[in-house]
Structure formats: C-alpha cells, structure tokens
C-alpha cells in the first residue's frame, strides 16, 4: 500500500488532492453528486465579510481547452457561512480549508479570527488573486493584492497575528515574477503557497463585436493553462522553502503527477469538477496506479524530482 499522506504546515492530509476554491461550493452542494471521502481536503468558495452579488452575466464562456469565468466572488458572507455552511462541514471526513478575501486588513483579520474558532476548519487560504474583483486594500497601482509584494506581505502578517491555523497564500500568475510575491508571503509568515489562480483573459463575439463576458475580462482556467501553472510552481519551488500546492488545468492523474514532480506537495482540482464531479476520485486512482507500477512507496519521494533542473 502506497503512502499518500502529506503535510502542509500543521495540516496533515490523507492524500494530496484538494478541491479548489469556487469549484466545490461548501461541500454540501457536491455531496449529492459525488463521494467526498476520496479528497484530502476541500477549499471552500471564498467568503467575504459581507455578502457579495457578484459580476453581471454572462459570467462563463468556453475557450479552446479552457473556460473564462467572471463570477466576482459572489457569496453570502461570513454570517451565512457560520450559520448555514459549517454544520455540514463538521460532518465530513475531508479536511476543510476556508478561502477568505477581505476589503481591508481589518476584514481579513475578522474573517481569519472567526473561522479559526471553528473546530472543523483546518487551514485558511488567502485569496489575494481573484482577477475578477479590484482590491480596495490600499492605494496601489495594482488591481490584485497578489500583484503587489508589499500588500501581500502586509495581509499575510496581519492574518498571521490572528490565527494559529495553517496559512496558505494563493498567488496570481498575472505578474512579472511570481517568485517575488511568493517570497514576500513566505517571509511574512505564510505556511504554504497555492498557485496558480486563473489567468486574466478575453473572448470576443465577432458577430456583435462585443466581449463574451459581462465584465469584459475574466479568469482563464482548464487544460489551456496547465503549462503556465507548471512553470509557475516550478519557479516557486526553487525560490521558497514552504510547501507549494499546485493547480491549473489538472484533469488526470498524470497532470497531477506533473505538478508533484515540478515541486508541489499537494494539488488542487478545479475546473475538472465542473465537468465531472467525481474527477478527484478518478485522479486519485490514476496516481495510485502510477505509484504501484513504478514501485514508489511514498508520494513525498516524488515531490520536486524534476530531472535536469539545473540553472
């Protein structure tokens, strides 16, 4: 029997597969579609302090080997999470990582402090990288917090003061040098990095001359972004010491293994869940088969083993 167990900060997962934020609801919605027990962890849809209506439709459009989304962090807010979502999360076997996004330092801290009080929450993922909202944190020429190393460090430091839970910082690929932001998060006390969030994109309907999304631009996900994501996590793995959770277009076991070889200790499955709610359990089976065939006892021995990775 292969050992699939991995640790990220103080968090131990029975296997390295994590449901990505925004692609798994709050677990309950998916429970009637698939078996949740195969997942190592679930990252919730991002919660904000106050409810958010989200962006104008259309919010989704398919593009070659991928999709653009512009949801805009629609969610019912922290209060609804505490009253209505936690009850189900307490019952499930997978570990729970809560994704949070704040409009100010104080909001980030309130969110982190509140969810840290819940026994079922194992970690916090800071969503500093949603490309569909413009951050209001401080006067900055950047639209996303994760494009600004100082803002990233400030949020991580502020949240770090309020929680002892494992803290994961989700990064955007829409930067010149992702390692710069990754290092800033590491230095500020982040326990792990999550990469990548979606890539900002655009799709146009030539018949009308209009953008296909209501907010013009949106975040690209799916197989189309896998090479970019792999490059990002590989660069990060050489720049930081904290664990990296990879994501971006993982549809199969071999996709997931590529991320692990590139330096990820765990991977997130996102868009694949839209197509097949049971994608994770299939990916897990494929990983197990690969390990068995290649006589790899422990998945950890595969992490960051990319050959010929010299400078």
């Amino acid at each position, binding site marked *: 029997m292969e050992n699939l167990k991995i640790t990220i900060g103080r968090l131990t997962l029975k296997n390295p597969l994590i449901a990505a934020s*925004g*692609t798994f609801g709050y677990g309950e919605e998916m429970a009637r579609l698939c078996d949740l027990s195969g997942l190592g962890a679930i990252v919730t849809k991002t919660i904000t302090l106050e409810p958010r*209506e989200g962006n104008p439709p259309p919010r989704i459009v398919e593009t070659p*080997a991928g999709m653009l989304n512009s949801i805009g962090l629609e969610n019912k807010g922290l209060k609804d999470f505490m009253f209505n979502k936690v009850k189900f999360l307490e019952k499930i076997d997978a570990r729970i990582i809560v994704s949070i996004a704040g409009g100010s330092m104080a909001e980030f801290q309130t969110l982190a402090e509140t969810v840290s009080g819940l026994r079922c929450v194992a970690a916090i993922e800071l969503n500093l990288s949603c490309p569909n909202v413009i951050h209001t944190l401080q006067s900055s020429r950047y639209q996303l917090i994760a494009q600004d190393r100082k803002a990233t460090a400030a949020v991580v430091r502020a949240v770090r003061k309020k929680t002892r839970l494992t803290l994961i910082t989700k990064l955007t690929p829409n930067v010149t040098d992702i390692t710069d932001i990754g290092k800033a998060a590491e230095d500020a006390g982040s326990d792990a990095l999550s990469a990548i969030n979606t890539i900002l994109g655009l799709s146009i309907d030539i018949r009308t001359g209009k953008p296909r999304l209501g907010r013009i631009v949106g975040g690209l996900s799916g197989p189309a972004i896998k090479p970019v994501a792999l490059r990002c996590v590989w660069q990060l793995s050489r720049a930081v010491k904290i664990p990296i959770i990879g994501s971006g277009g993982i549809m199969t076991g071999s996709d997931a293994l590529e991320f692990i070889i590139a330096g990820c200790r765990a991977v997130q499955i996102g868009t694949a869940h*839209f197509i*097949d709610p049971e994608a994770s359990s299939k990916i897990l089976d494929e990983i197990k088969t690969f390990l068995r065939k290649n006589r790899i006892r422990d998945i950890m021995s595969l992490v960051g083993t990319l050959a010929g990775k010299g400078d």
Partner: protein
Amino acid sequence: MCSATCAIRSYSYFKMTKKTVKKFIAPIISNREIAPGYFLLDVKMPGARQTVVPGQFFNIKITSGITPLLRRPFSAHKIEKDAVKILYKVVGQATTMLRDKKCGDTLDILGPLGNGFSIPAAGRRGTAFLVGGGHGVAPLYALAERLKGHTDITVLIGGRSREHIIGAGEFRKLGAEVLVATDDGSSGHRGFVTDILEGQLRRIFDAKKGGVLYDRGYTKNDAHTRRSAAVYACGPAPMLSAVSKIAEGYTTPCQVSVEEYMGCGTGICMGCAIDTTSGKKLVCRDGPVFNGKDIVWKT
C-alpha cells in the same frame, strides 16, 4: 372597467420535489435530422418517466476529450418510459460533434438537473398556452404530454421562417391547437408569436368582462368549473420577456424556461446567474424554469 385580477383564475400547483441527480453513460438509440439543421437524439435512460420532470435538463459531455471542454445543457423533449428524446439545433462545435454521433455510441450525461415546470393539479380545467420560439419548443412537448387530459392545450410556435417551425405536427397529434407565427409570413401569422398570445389572452379576458370565464353551460355557482389559463414559454430572452409582460397584463400565471451559459449545471460554479426580483439566482439550480414576473428582464 373590469379589473384584470378577476379575469382569469390561476392554476394551483403541485410542489415539485427535487429528484436525485445522477451521472450515467447513455447508449444512443437514434440521432436523426428531423428538419434542416434540427436533430432529434434518442438516448436510453432507465426509469426516465418516473424521474424526469418536463423543463428539467441534462448536461451532456459530448466527447471524452477537452474540446469541447464543458458539458452542454439540453432539455428533455420527450420523456418515455426508459428513454429520453432531445431536440437540438446544430449551432456550433459541440452540436456539430453531437450530430455526428451514431446509434450505439454513448454519451456521458448528468441529470436530470434543475427545476421543471409546475404542472397544474389534476382535475383543474382550463387552457394552457405553450409558447415556443425556434428550438425553444424542445421542452414544451414533454410538458404538453403531461398536461394532456388536464387542460386544453394551445401551442404557439414562432420562428424566422417556415423552416424554423419545429414540431407543429407532433403537437397536433397530441390533440393540441397549434398556431404559428413567422417573421417573413412564410407560415401562419406574419409577425411575432407574442402577437398571437396577446390576441388569445384578450379573447378569454373579453369573453366575460367583469368576471371569470366559465365552461360552456355552467354558471358562476359552479365554482369548480371556472376556466383558468396559464402560460408556459421557452425561447430567446426578448421573446420570454415579452411573453411574461403580456401574461402579467392579463394576470395569467406564466412560467418561462431561461437559457444562460453554464459552467457546471449543478449550482457549483455560479456562472449562470440572472437577476430576479429577489436578487441573483442560478439558472441551473433555481431554474431553468422561473415565474416570468420574478425575472428582471433587460429588454
């Protein structure tokens, strides 16, 4: 002047309970062109009649590859004992690939999804107006089959021209009255299908000014024989908007089946949001059938 509220009594509705969703691999029984560009796909689904509500949809993965990547939603056109027929128009890459599927091929299907039409309680008399624009008639046939015997059915079909009027013969076979409108006048009324609807509702409305419409031979003391009307519509958004407003003008209940781009079809991705009088709702989870008056129409 008669107040609009007394003209037409609304149906009373069953509360439709949400059925379980399941993913299944469905063998194709047949897949044939029934009119230029329009295809009828017949797939096996054991127990379909017991589980599928007219207006619900199936999210279909057309190929196992990544092009097209996402599933595509299709409503149930005919619900049989152990099979479901889907009426679709070839419009893009996904439907072109679906067109090329043959008997014996299989499709990966998630469904039935969403909330279907509310069907009036048995025994209630009245007229149901089913309004379809183009291939928007697709879910209306399944609905007509369920309504048959409960109410009189009048189907109003609109399209650009004669070739885009689909299913008229099938509805007639069910015993429904079928009225057609085309933009170019090549079949039926020249103009919009909504013109016909307006005329039909006005006729009922005017027939008994100041009161409700009764079945022939009955008086208002026979309360249970009061005539009622209801509108069900599926088609492009501008048509649904117009239908909804006309129905509201005659205080007639109106259910519309709405289309929007979907990511997952299961309420997870929140991609198919529309504006309603009570905030954003998801077409896949809260719809695709909504009360027309609950939607904030853009046109």
